[in-house]
């Protein structure tokens, strides 16, 4: 049942750091976060880890395990061989604060740049009506737990710090798509998504989808549909001509570009 797990944990801060070896007893059914907590409680009381719900619902304990961006609480030790050494490092796209904790304020800054939902007035009986099939696409995106693993794995900012100002990242493309598909929203965010948010920087290599712990199909269901919507707006002469002669898509009527 129980065995001694060999771990290498990155410890340090912006001035430098190293992988530190630890051996810790673990038992059946445990996850990487359990092992780290035991290291914390018995060997390194000041080991910095960010975590919260330990159930894969809050998205706090994002890190990289054997080089792969994952949630510490959702990575079971049974996925590894008992003789394998597990290497845990902080996310490598964000500035490190200490040990496994990084400064994810990039994401909170990006969230501020996004114009929020803009609904029309309620119906006469003070309620709103939307059909289930119309909200389902948005609901998939709202499963996002904001672990920022997609942001972390995206090479646009991971490998190119200089792109950070001009690129909102997959998490926020998800949000753009959610609002653009919202049956009631009155804003047209396509120009903004392509311009300020840097949708065109994405080369759809799908790493965001690969690492999403919620299994949201970020690329296929949000980013590419959003890119297609931008094509509608900017790169499709037929639709432009159609708009000019009044053959417009009634489904998107009443929206105002922001």
């Amino acid at each position, binding site marked *: 049942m129980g065995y001694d797990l060999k771990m290498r944990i990155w410890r340090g801060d912006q001035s430098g750091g190293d992988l530190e070896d630890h051996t810790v007893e673990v038992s059946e059914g445990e996850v990487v976060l359990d092992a780290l907590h035991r290291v914390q409680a018995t060997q390194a009381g000041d080991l910095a880890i960010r975590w919260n719900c330990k159930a894969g619902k809050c998205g706090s304990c994002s890190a990289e395990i054997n080089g792969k961006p994952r949630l510490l609480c959702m990575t079971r030790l049974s996925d590894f061989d008992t003789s394998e050494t597990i290497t845990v490092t902080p996310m490598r796209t964000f500035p490190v604060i200490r040990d496994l904790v990084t400064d994810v304020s990039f994401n909170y800054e990006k969230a501020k740049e996004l114009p929020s939902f803009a609904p029309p007035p309620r119906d006469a009986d003070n309620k709103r009506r939307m059909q289930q099939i119309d909200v389902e696409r948005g609901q998939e995106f709202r499963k996002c737990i904001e672990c920022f693993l997609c942001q972390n794995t995206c090479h646009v900012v991971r490998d190119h710090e200089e792109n950070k100002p001009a690129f909102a990242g997959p998490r926020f493309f998800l949000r753009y798509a959610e609002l653009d598909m919202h049956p009631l929203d009155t804003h047209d965010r396509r120009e903004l998504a392509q311009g300020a948010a840097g949708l065109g920087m994405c080369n759809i290599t799908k790493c965001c989808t690969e690492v999403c712990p919620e299994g949201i199909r970020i690329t296929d269901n949000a980013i590419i549909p959003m890119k297609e919507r931008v094509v509608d707006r900017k790169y499709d002469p037929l639709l432009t001509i159609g708009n000019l002669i009044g053959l417009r898509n009634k*489904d998107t009527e009443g929206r105002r570009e922001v």
Partner: protein
Amino acid sequence: MASTETRQATRETAQAGVNGPTRARIGVKTLRTDRWWLYPLATFAVFSAFVAYATFRAVWGHDYFAEPYLSPFYSPCLTDSCVKGSSDFGQPFSWWGLSPALIILIFPLGFRMSCYYYRKAYYRSFWLSPPACAVAEPHARYTGETRFPLIFQNVHRWFWYAAVVVSLILTYDVVLAFGPAEGESSGIHMGLGTLLMLINVVFIWAYTLGCHSCRHIMGGRLRHFSKHPIRYKAWTLASKLNARHANYAWYSLFSIAIVDVYIFLLAANVFNDPRFF
């Protein structure tokens, strides 16, 4: 033997990417221990092989028709040089002096080059941008698809329209493939070639109708599925195919190559088509 320029670029990457001054100093481009290089390597090998073969076949201009089979690389055959019986849509490009394949291949080629799945595959395996998830890419700068030439990837839907026409023509070719081979009586016949062409066209349709642009045009661009039940249905079907778009991209690539090889060998009289009836 890296040139000064490359070394300069490497240094800039080291500054800007995962080894940048604010990031955790880990020092290696990835700590992944799995075989992450397998996908880009395999993709690189297969695509290169396909491109080499397709170029050879397209430029060569021979052995693409074996009654009643026409190779998908040469369909429709539209020039003077097309062999007898292969031009089902006339020969409007009579002035064309090169291989007839070169006129029409631009459409399937453009469709696949701008396809969202193929883009992922070749950006990863040919450009290494990135080679795999959480593996640092070797480039110093990156602008994505925001400027020339990659901004032209946005034409994908136009190639999709063309791809539908191509798929229709290939479907017509399959119908013709149920026709008689040389020396057979008129009426419906079938050989191994017919079967291969049939399988090929099914994969091509599965690939074409599962295209992201198709999905968007069918209904993806709507905000109210509930007001467009038929388009919603079409979107749902396209979405189902779309979920396996990568698979169909590969299957159809192989099936095109196999059909062409098969017809090539028939036309070159290497062996005879086994006829079922």
